């Protein structure tokens, strides 16, 4: 009688242990599933939340870095554009062509362009050539 009781208690204890081990294994699986979900969430947040902001900023940066800068024109303009601008603004002033309507209009457009580009010697040189051709001015 005692033997059977001991055997029963042992089988119950074994059953209880095996059940506990099974539940521990199932907790492990759920923990890993939670980790994977967390990882997916972070990935999606990172992709959707931050990337759009970065791309707009990077796009602006990329576009700005693409354009070429003419440093020699900038340095040349720093010292020589004032003289050329002064010469052009006197010789191409629209009031000098007040008798000829057609030339007056050309001079007015040229004068506006000269004022707009008064610190860009390259453009001023182009305008000088244009003025010589269109307004017959001798520089």
């Amino acid at each position, binding site marked *: 009688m005692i033997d059977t009781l001991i055997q029963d208690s042992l089988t119950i204890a074994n059953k209880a242990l095996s059940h506990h081990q099974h539940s521990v294994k199932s907790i492990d699986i759920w923990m890993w599933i939670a980790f994977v979900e967390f990882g997916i969430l972070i990935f999606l947040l*990172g992709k959707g939340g931050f990337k759009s902001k970065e791309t707009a900023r990077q796009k602006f940066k990329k576009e700005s870095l693409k354009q070429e*800068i003419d*440093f020699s024109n900038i*340095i040349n303009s*720093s010292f020589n554009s004032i003289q050329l601008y002064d010469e052009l603004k006197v010789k191409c002033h629209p009031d000098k062509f007040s008798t000829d309507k057609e030339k007056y209009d050309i001079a007015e457009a040229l004068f506006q362009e000269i004022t707009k580009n008064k*610190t860009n010697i390259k453009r001023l040189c182009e305008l000088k050539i244009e003025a010589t051709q269109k307004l017959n001015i001798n520089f």
Partner: protein
Amino acid sequence: MLNNTWNSIVDWFRDRSERNRLLRSFNESARSSFVSGVAPTLLKATISKGEQSYRHQFSDWLNTGFRIQAFTGRVLSKDELIHIGKVILNDSILVRRLIVLGWDTLEIHGDAGSFGCRWQLKDYIPLPNF
């Protein structure tokens, strides 16, 4: 997130390289213009501390000033300083490049005297809000 951090690190190094390349190109052009006689004065671009109140969204943490020094051997007049500054500020491509590379202040001064001029770069180009 990791990707963004990595991109930021790569961008930072790329910006350093671009900044140095811009300075080098400017100084080389200035030197060749001076040697060939196109420019009567030698200009030299360096990085300076910059003005804290001129900051914008692209500003670097430190050294945000783009300083141009004119080696004339005399004190430059205010008009001369302003003209050099205006030539640079009227070049929208250069101003845009300076802003994007983290500069926010343009400083012009001569090699003699303590007087100089400085401008806030963000005033000369419309910056989008990110």
